[in-house]
């Protein structure tokens, strides 16, 4: 075995190595969310704005950029999920239960990471089937074709309005987003600790930024199903 393969294997097998992999794969996901949110919020600017943005995104790099981003994000996401499941299984195996368990300072978010994470996994699968692959709906059909500056485009606006008009979808989105917020509040700060970039001096700041980030993501994404399903925006 060559040096690279040997090192990578032993690193990926080690406790700290696995955690560093989780942290590193978390970073692109943390960076992706604000970008995705900014695009989605264009729904409040109007049909033209979000449809134009959608068309721009799909034409970027002669249509290749969106596929590169999808492949990259999916790969990173898959590694993040697989490694955290491995870590969680090891953690469960390492700890026999206390008859009278106690918790001193661990946050609730930190204690439900695997459950918030698995809900997010289910949500991502549903979300991709819902709005990207458009399975089990006619969001890819003729009713969702429009034009932007004379060019044929997908009617993202109409798809979002119709998508969130269905109560079960909106409710699931809201639950998943709330757990995402919880997941991010612990995950954000954990990235710094795991990569060795946290100290007692920066602890407060990192914690605050993590909470602020999670809150912005939560409120931002939540505003869309709330506006459409509860307040009837665009319907």
């Amino acid at each position, binding site marked *: 075995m060559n*040096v*690279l393969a*040997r*090192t990578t294997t*032993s*690193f990926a*097998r*080690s*406790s*700290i*190595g*696995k*955690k*560093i992999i989780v942290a590193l794969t978390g970073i692109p996901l943390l960076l992706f969310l604000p970008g995705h949110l900014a695009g989605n919020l264009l729904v409040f600017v109007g049909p033209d704005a979000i449809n134009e943005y959608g068309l721009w995104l799909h034409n970027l790099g002669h249509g290749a950029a969106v596929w590169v981003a999808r492949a990259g994000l999916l790969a990173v996401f898959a590694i993040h999920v697989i490694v955290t499941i491995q*870590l969680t299984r*090891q*953690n469960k*195996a*390492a*700890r*026999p*239960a*206390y*008859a*009278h*368990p*106690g*918790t*001193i*300072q*661990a*946050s609730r978010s*930190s*204690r439900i*990471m695997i459950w918030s994470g698995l809900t997010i996994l289910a949500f991502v699968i549903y979300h991709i089937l819902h709005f990207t692959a458009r399975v089990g709906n006619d969001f890819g059909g003729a009713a969702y074709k429009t034009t932007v500056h004379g060019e044929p485009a997908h009617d993202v606006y109409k798809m979002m309005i119709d998508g969130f008009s269905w109560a079960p979808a909106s409710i699931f989105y809201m639950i998943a987003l709330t757990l995402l917020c919880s997941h991010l509040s*612990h995950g954000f*700060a*954990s990235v*710094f*600790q*795991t*990569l*060795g*970039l*946290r*100290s*007692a001096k920066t602890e407060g700041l990192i914690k605050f930024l993590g909470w602020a980030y999670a809150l912005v993501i939560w409120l931002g994404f939540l505003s869309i199903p709330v506006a459409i399903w509860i307040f009837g925006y665009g319907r």
Partner: protein
Amino acid sequence: MNLTLKVWRQDGPNDKGRIETHEARDIPEEASFLEMLDIVNEGIITGGGAPIAFDHDCREGICGTCSLTINGVPHGPDRGVTACQLHMRRFRDGDTIWIEPFRAHAFPVLKDLVVDRSAFDRIIAAGGYVSVRTGAAPDAHAIPVEKENADAAFDAATCIGCGACVAACKNASAMLFVSAKASHLNHLPQGEPEKHRRVLGMVRQMDEEGFGNCTNQYECEAACPKSISVDNIALLNRNYAAATAHEAAVAP
């Protein structure tokens, strides 16, 4: 004061173990927690029973031998103290107190509240030392050490190796112990040359012993009788990445 104790009893390493209820009568509130157990044991022995086995030695908070999980918290409710420094005045008359051993698969129970913590010794043997003779106290003064490094090394060196960090961790991770021991030596000029080898050796042994993985919940820091900071864990994470790269590319 009178208390009800829910105590873990286990006849030997292969016994399944169970929670047993004992009444602790007429306990003076100035007794330490271990003295309270001594009083209860005297009663058990008088009645012809087998006393509750528990680890203890110095009884002044420096040896790291006592290893009780009290109401789910290693060393009990007070921060920065060991179980032997905990006094019964911290409890109220009529309280029910749960007493369990430090739980981790890497710390198998030997009897009742006594666990085998030799996994820690094997981690130390895997790199928690300096290979050469570094001389006596006067020799230490011959080498200047930056104040920041000396302080960091001293703070980490206060670890008494009791294992409360493992017992408190939801995943029975030994990261606080390993990071404190590595940080103690890595910060000093005598330990620095073997830094990479030490970090790799100790982390590998830690993984082999079957401890869990750190999930950054900092229960360890809160339970540590010496209040050792999780900053050491951040440092160990960083040092481990550097040591891995060093081993792959540079080390002979």
